Structure formats: C-alpha cells, structure tokens
C-alpha cells in the first residue's frame, strides 16, 4: 500500500490518499462495447465513448460525401470548359463540398468524435459532466444534417459555403434550408463546448492539476471557449440572412437598403475563429502522439498549453483579413493585417516545441507518428503561406485565387484531417481493442502524403499566376496544373479507401491490442482496451504528469486503495 499527496479537483485542498497499483487486464471480459447491445441501447446511450463513436460514424459518412464531391469537382477540372457536368452543377458541388467538409466534418471531427471518446478518460472521469446533454448535442447535429440534406434534394445550394450577400439573398437555390441547418448545428457545437469546459473544470481525477493536464485537453479547452463564444454570432448571421430572404427585411442586400460588406464581417467573425475550432484540437493530438512515440517528456509544456489559449483569443481579432479587397475601411485593413501576424507566432512556437521534443528521444515510426511528421511538414507550409496572405500587398494579388484554396487545404486538410488520422490510428486500439495492419497503414499514410502534395502544391503555383477560385472554366495556360492536381486527388481517394479497408478488417480479424500497445504514460492507456463502461474499475490517482517518461510505469497505474468507497 502506498500513499500519495494530491489535490482533488473537487476540493482544491491538499490531501493524502491511500493508493495502490491497478494493472489493467490485457483481456477484459466486460467492456463498453459488450455492456449495452442493440440499436436502441446505442441510440439512447449516454456513454461518452459510444456517443464519440456515433459522431465518428457520422463524420466518416459526411467525409465520404464531401470527398466524392471533391473528386467529381477535380474530374470536371481535367479540361477547360465542360468535361462532364454543367456550370450550375459544378457551382453546387463546390458549395456542398465546402459546407459539408467545414460544418459536418472538420468542426466535429476531433472535438466531438475523438474528443468525446478520450476527454473523460484522460481526466480519469466516468463520463462528461452532462452526459444527457452530450447525447442531445449529437441529435441536434443529426437534425441540422437533415435540414441540409433537405436542401440537397430540393434545388441544392449554389452560393459557396460563405453565403456572400447579395448573391445569397437573390439565389434561387435552397439557402434557407441550409442556413437553418447550420443554425441548428451551431447549438450542437455550443453545447459540446460547454460540456467539455465543465468536465475539465470539475471532473479531474485526484492529482490532475492544471499543470498535469494532458495538452490534448488544453487544446480541447481552448477550442471549447471558441465554440461557446463564436458560434452564437454565426447563428445570428444566418438568422438575419434567413429573415432577409424570407421576410424581405433589408440587412445585407443593397436593393433593400442593406450592406453586403456587413455580412462579410458577421460571417468571418465566426468563421475565422472556426478555423481554430478545427486547428487547435489538432495541436492537442500532435502533442500526445509525438511524446508517446518518442518516449519523451514534451518540450515546453506551458509554451504549448498557453499558445493554444493565445491562438484562441487572438483568433477572435483577425476576421477582417478575409476582406482586404472587400472595400472595408483602410484602418480596419491595416489593423487586421497586423493582428494576423501576431496569431502566426504562437503557432510557430508550437511547431518548434514539437520538433525539439524529438531531440534525444526514442523514436518509433509507427503509423500515428508518420502522420505527425506529415503534419509538421504540411502544416508548416500552411503557416508560411498564411503569412504570405496576411501581407497586405501580396494578399491583394493572391486573394480569391487557387493560392488561397491551396493554403486553407494545407491548414484544414493537412493540419486538421491529417492529425485526425494520427489520432484515429493512435486511439483505434483503445476504442476497439484491435490492432490494424501496420504495413497497410503505413502504405495508406504514404499515399495520403503523396496524394495531398500532388493535389495542392500545383494550386499554389497556378493561384500565384492568377487562376481564380470557384472557376468552372479556365484559360488554357492552367491546364497542366489542374490535371496534376486531379491526379493527386485520385491518389488521395485510393489512400482513404485503403484506410477504410484495413480499419474495417481490423474489427473482424485484428490482433488483440492489449491495454497499452504504445507504452504511453497517458491516463487513457492505464485501463483495459476497450475500456469498461465506467472507463476505470477504480478511481485513478495521478502523481506524475502525462509525459513523465522518465518515471516507471508502476507509478502511472494507481488508484484509490479503499475500493468500497465508490469509485
């Protein structure tokens, strides 16, 4: 029997607790997957792990839809003018590709799917603070999705995912259905954020001080703050747009006495912070994976933790950099450019801290780590081109060209989606208890890296040469870049199919993962795989930080010794 001096989150005062080692079973009998079975049990579950998996399923479905749209768009762009679809269809496809990928894939991908699964486990909690609210968030997401799909069946949407007025006021497509869908969806995001903030504040296991909080949770915490503060503005904006269209109240349309630039301010006031809703959770995953696979303490814990918060706050003050050519005031343009550079600094700091973490580590290039390396390369390019676009004179030339398209794919796909894949491969054994085929997974990661760069590097060049975005037709000089890009997108498609194949196969015939296949010090790995319904069969007690790889494993598998007092 050991004792540990810890500060429980509930009281905040120091206490001495009796602890003992609980070595997790390598072959668990009862898991959350065997606990409640059947469709109804899943649909009404309040278990954060099952809700996380339901989000994972939905996100995968929407990614498939958005991805197929992307491949159709790229195929159309193989030749100038018509290849196989009409201009109006093309316009609808790029609108839906953007809207689905942003609202239904990227925003919920890490926080709602992976975050839901690991957040309570990393805290040593049984569930999130408000489990029923968590389930409600999922259904709100589904209802939002249904509204959007009604629009698809009913005239589609052709405004671009940005809904710029007055085009969106005048368009004959189903703008109202989609804006209502986005309005509803926003509540899902707000409620998940609220839930996470409450959980991180109140449900930390004894011993998890703010300084021992895994960086993934700092990232999710910063993300939740943005979700709670920024999403209501999107709700207001789409509501005003709906009022303008449905009731003819003039807000944005000059024909009704409104101002179209006002819409852009409202829209980007949410949608720029939304970029950080997508990117900041990615930073969390990178910190977890890079320490596990280099068996090393994170370099600059506080620099990484606090830079997430800095990004969250400064991220609220840079929306106007989407509007340098819009006709907004000159003073606003200058200030927004300046602040944009400031938000680049904490992001750069993170990248350098991650690289420094590798120094003198014990590096194992497993699949999640390969994705982290891809991330660091691709995301750096995304960051540098962001600096380019923040530069006033350069942005005048590059705004609304393929350079911007390439930039945000390097950030959103190269940043968020690749780290999502890192996280998925990292936590897959924990979620399912099964290992995937490592060789196939490495081939998949290589295909994604090669396909991604083949698709988007040429877009920087053609954008810089003047190829505007959202163009169905293009002038001949851009043909070679478009064709290279299209070939890259097919490679990406094959990569994703391979990933889907071996992950699905692992469920049936994958090897048993064991509780901690990567030898991680993270709390979520100190229980069975898959975990049981309450995550741990004891109340975990934490005395070491999540990255203390210099301490022996015995010190990470501790729980309250007196079993009879609830766990």
């Amino acid at each position, binding site marked *: 029997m050991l004792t540990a001096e810890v500060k429980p989150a509930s009281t905040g005062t120091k206490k001495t607790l009796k602890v003992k080692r609980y070595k997790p079973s390598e072959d668990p009998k009862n898991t959350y997957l065997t606990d409640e079975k059947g469709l109804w049990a899943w649909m009404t579950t309040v278990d954060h792990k099952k809700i996380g998996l339901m989000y994972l399923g939905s996100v995968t479905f929407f990614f498939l839809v958005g991805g197929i749209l992307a491949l159709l768009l790229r195929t159309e762009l193989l030749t100038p003018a018509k290849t196989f679809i009409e201009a109006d269809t093309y316009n609808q496809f790029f609108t839906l590709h953007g809207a689905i990928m942003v609202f239904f894939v990227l925003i919920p991908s890490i926080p709602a799917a992976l975050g839901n699964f690991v957040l309570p486990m990393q805290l040593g909690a049984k569930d999130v603070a408000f489990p029923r609210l968590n389930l409600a968030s999922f259904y709100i997401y589904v209802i939002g999705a249904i509204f959007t799909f009604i629009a698809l069946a009913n005239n589609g949407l052709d405004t671009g995912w940005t809904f710029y007025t007055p085009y969106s006021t005048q368009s004959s497509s189903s703008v109202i259905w989609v804006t209502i869908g986005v309005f509803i969806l926003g509540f899902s995001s707000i409620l998940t954020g609220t839930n996470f903030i409450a959980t991180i504040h109140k449900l930390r296991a004894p011993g998890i001080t703010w300084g021992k909080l895994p960086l993934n949770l700092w990232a999710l915490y910063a993300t939740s703050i943005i979700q709670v503060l920024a999403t209501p503005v999107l709700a207001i904006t789409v509501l005003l747009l709906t009022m303008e269209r449905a009731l003819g109240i003039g807000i944005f349309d000059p024909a009704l006495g409104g101002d179209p630039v006002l819409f852009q301010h409202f829209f980007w006031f949410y949608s720029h912070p939304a970029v950080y809703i997508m990117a900041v959770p990615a930073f969390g995953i990178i910190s977890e994976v890079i320490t596990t696979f280099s068996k090393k303490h994170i370099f*600059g814990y506080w620099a990484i933790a606090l830079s997430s918060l800095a990004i969250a706050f400064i991220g609220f003050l840079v929306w106007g950099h989407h509007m340098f050519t819009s006709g907004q005031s000159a003073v606003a343009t200058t200030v927004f450019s300046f602040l944009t550079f400031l938000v680049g600094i904490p992001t750069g700091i993170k990248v350098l801290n991650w690289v420094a973490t590798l120094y003198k580590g014990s590096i194992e290039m497993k699949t999640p780590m390969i994705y982290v390396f891809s991330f660091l390369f691709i995301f750096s390019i995304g960051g540098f081109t962001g600096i380019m676009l923040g530069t006033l004179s350069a942005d005048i030339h590059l705004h*609304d*060209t393929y350079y911007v398209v390439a930039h945000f794919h390097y950030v959103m796909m190269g940043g968020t989606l690749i780290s999502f894949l890192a996280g998925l491969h990292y936590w897959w054994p924990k979620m399912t208890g099964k290992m995937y085929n490592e060789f196939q997974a490495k081939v998949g990661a290589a295909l994604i890296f090669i396909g991604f760069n083949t698709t988007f590097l040429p877009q920087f060049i053609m954008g810089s040469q003047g190829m505007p975005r959202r163009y169905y037709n293009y*002038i001949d000089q851009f043909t070679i870049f478009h064709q290279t890009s299209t070939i890259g997108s097919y490679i990406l498609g094959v990569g994703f199919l391979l990933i889907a194949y071996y992950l699905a196969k692992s469920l049936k015939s994958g090897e048993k993962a064991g509780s901690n296949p990567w030898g991680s010090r993270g709390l979520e790995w100190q229980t069975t795989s898959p975990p049981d319904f309450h995550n741990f069969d004891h109340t975990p007690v934490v005395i070491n930080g999540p990255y203390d790889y210099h301490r022996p494993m015995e010190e990470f598998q501790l729980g309250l010794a007196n079993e009879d007092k609830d766990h």
Partner: protein
Amino acid sequence: MGSLFDFMLPELESPLTGASTDAVMAFIHIVSFIILAGVTIALIYFAIKYKRKSEDDETPLITHNNKLEITWSVIPLLLVFIVFGWGYKGWLNLQTPPDNAYEIHVSAYKWGWTFSYENGAQIGNEVHVPAGRPVKLVMQSQDVLHSFFVPDYRIKQDVLPNRYTTVWFQAEEEGESQVFCTEYCGTSHSDMLATVVAHTQEDFEAWLDEQNTGGGGTPVERGESLVSIQGCVTCHSVDGSQKIGPSFQGLFGREETMTNGTTLTADENYIRESILNPSAKIVEGYQNQMVSYEGRLSDDDISDIIEYIKTLED
C-alpha cells in the same frame, strides 16, 4: 532563383503597382523555404539518429528551455514585423492613385464588364488604356459582388452594388493583359473575363475618337441636363451663390465640416450618399431638408451627375 519566381508569377506589366508586391513575395518565399528546410532536416535527422533501439530505451528529462523559447518567439516576431511593414507600404501605394490618373468608369454585371470613357464612349469586356500613364478605374456593380483582378498588374478590388470602389495601375508597354472576376457571382462567373489593351498615347487617342459616343451626349452633358430636369439647381447653385443647400461649384474634393463636427472630403461616395440618403451627413450651416432620390435616379444617372459636378471648379 529568378527563373523560379518567373514560374510562380506572371510577367509584371505595371511595375508601379506590382514591384513591391513581387519583392515582398520573394522575401517571404525565401525565408519560408529556409525555415521549412531547417524543420524538415531536423525531423529527418532526429528520426534517424534517435531511432528506438529497444523497448527499454531511457530518455532524458528535458522539460523546457526559456532562452530557446524566447529566441524562437522573438526572431519570427521581428521577421513578421518586417513583412507587415513591407506589405503595408505596398498596399498604401495601391490605395493611392496618382493625381494625374486617367479615369475610366467600370460597371460590372452578371456576367460582364462595361467600361465608360469621358467622351461618352462605352465598350464591353475590353478596356483600352494609354500606356505609360496611370489609369484609375471607378467601379460599381449593377447586381451582386464582383471583383476586378489583373494578375499582370498585381491589382484586385471588389466591385460593390452600393458604393464605388477604385483601383489604379500603369501599363508601361503596349500589350494585352487578362482581367478575371474573382468574386463568385453565379453560373458564368468563370466566363466573366475582360482584356486590358494598352496603347501608346497617340494610338489610344485615335482609338477613343473612333468610338461611337452613342445617344444622349457625354456623361457630363447628361449630368448637366439631369441636375436641371430633377430640380437639383433649385437648392444647389452651380455658380457658387448661396441657396438652400451647398453649391455644386467646387464641391468635388472640397473639405466640408458636418453638423456633428466631423470633416470629410467630398468624393464620389459622399455625393452618392447625399443623393440617396441626404440626412446621413449635413454640412454645417445647412438644414436637413432634402428628400431622398432613391428610386428616382439610377446608378448611371448618379454617376453622370457626379461627373458633371467634377467639372464645376471654383
């Protein structure tokens, strides 16, 4: 290195607007490339050098290093300050057309461009300009947002339905440059193209003379008749004499003090606002008496009146 940038950017035809842009872009590309190469080499080197030898590998405890953190915060901060200042300077130049700029009016619509000249000539999807002289475009849209983009000049400006925006350039050589619409505007957005044709001054004048000025005279003539027909001259004199409202004479470019104490220079947007929403800004010493001409004057009418007012110098 030079050939790499030639590959990245189209040939620069308007150095007065684009040279600074090209320079700052080259600077960012070079610095980014160096840092990216450093990060990539470090990643590969560490992955090889510190490859895991056994499951029992021990790693040293290195938690942080404040000197290093400060170094890699301050150096990038200085770099981005340089880039900010450089970009700001170039952009300020883009916002400030030279006084002697030759002015052409641009009207954008779904899906094309109309260019109007001082002598009343109008031409679609092709704008002829004198080379070696700054040209200023005063632009407005008839419907949704559009954006005027000439890659060869490194200029771009959104075109709005409810206000004027301007952009300027100076083509140094004779030749043609591509214009794109870069604000998504519907079905034929990608076909909303135009060409800038730069001529020598003589050729340009010859071209302009050949153009049919159409019916109704020049914009200035149309504006003159409008202020009379619409009754503007009842309250606003054209010879500087005092009436119910401020005189039109010398109005354009005049510094006016408003009743709320602010001052402004009367420009196109101020005059447009005063016609459509007269109570928004009242010149000191005058009463808020005018009614809105919204619905009574078209956008083209207002443009013509402004052109006429511009001719009424002190």
